[in-house]
């Protein structure tokens, strides 16, 4: 196991592995998106209370989950980069930020579209919405920090510390609806005692969540490959790679 990790901590081996894995993740994400969207529109019944409008859940909830999951990946990779000084983890952390910011934006935008017809307002400053907005600012701050520092090592270290400080926001987002009175309703899926969502509605949601995860995996590998090539542009293997590509 340790040997395996150290092997793929080398930029070249990681690049080649990522190259092989990307199409698998990408294509399975595409298939699951098709299945999930079909399920969301045609298989899942309309909600007893919210009617057809509730179907936005199939974008809103997976985006919101991903916004938090991607942040944990980013902070985890950042921490690994700080401790073991692996270049691959720096590349992964950097690649996560724009993806996580997009998921966060998507969660906020779809939530706003959902809030208007159901709650009667686009936005309220309750604990859930506000903490999710802070998450967006954390991502944007991370991206800004990366582009403000020219030296990649320094940028990665500064970004990792920012990401680690921001980790505190993740449990706040998750538990905000339990700790405080919020307009946003409580958790549906992670509540273990009684199922709060009908099984026919749940299945497409889980398919969509899996599709979002695979999409993220494919995208983060593509981005990390670009980061690695740029980071290692003076190394022999990257130059050989480019020569190979050109001669083919």
């Amino acid at each position, binding site marked *: 196991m340790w040997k395996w990790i150290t092997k793929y901590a080398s930029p070249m081996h990681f690049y080649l592995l990522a190259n092989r894995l990307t199409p698998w993740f990408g294509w399975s994400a595409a298939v699951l998106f098709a299945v999930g969207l079909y399920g969301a529109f045609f298989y899942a*019944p309309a909600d*007893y209370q919210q009617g057809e409008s509730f179907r936005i859940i199939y974008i809103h909830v997976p985006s919101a989950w991903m916004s938090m999951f991607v942040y944990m990946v980013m902070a985890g990779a950042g921490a690994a980069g*700080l401790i073991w000084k692996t270049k691959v983890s720096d590349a992964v952390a950097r690649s996560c930020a724009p993806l996580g910011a997009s998921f966060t934006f998507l969660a906020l935008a779809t939530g706003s579209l959902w809030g208007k017809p159901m709650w009667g307002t686009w936005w309220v400053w309750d604990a859930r919405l506000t903490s999710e907005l802070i998450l967006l600012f954390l991502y944007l701050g991370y991206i800004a920090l990366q582009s403000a520092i020219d030296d990649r090592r320094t940028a990665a270290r500064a970004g990792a510390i920012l990401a680690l400080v921001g980790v505190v926001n993740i449990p*706040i987002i998750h538990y905000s609806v339990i700790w405080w*009175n*919020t307009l946003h309703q409580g958790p549906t899926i992670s509540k273990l005692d009684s199922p709060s969502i*009908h099984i026919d509605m749940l299945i497409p949601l889980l398919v969509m969540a899996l599709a979002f995860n695979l999409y993220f995996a494919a995208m983060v590998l593509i981005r990390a490959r670009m980061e690695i090539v740029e980071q290692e542009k003076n190394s022999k293997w990257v130059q050989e790679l480019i020569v190979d590509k050109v001669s083919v």
Partner: protein
Amino acid sequence: MNPKRKKLLFTVIFIVAGVGIATGLALMAFQENLLYFYSPTQIKDGEAPGNRNFRIGGLVVNGSVVRNPENLQVSFTLTDTMNNVDVSYDGILPDLFREGQGIVANGAINSDGVFIANEVLAKHDENYMPAEVADALERAGVEHNYKNNQALP
């Protein structure tokens, strides 16, 4: 793991734990202000601010909604199953507003103890089910709606 890595690992843990504890303490200190709304019981106990606008959350009591046919004036009673507060509102209600629904209203209490709302928002619960299932549950007499509703503190 060599000593230097170990030191870095502890630094990382220290940052996360330190920020976590600091934030936790800050949030506990601000607890009151982070509440998006007060429940009727909290209002009865005098926890709600008397001199400024605040929000109230609760369930609309069945049969309590009275509409004025002339204008948009509507009055209803909110409950958290223990205490009730009468609410008066002049404006358009959200689509989800109905008897038994959880709602959040923004406004202030007048001298008669009536909450004069200037905004009413619907709070839906975390349950999703097809209409047939909801009907079947209702027929079976199961209290499916608000049993676990977060609107009730």
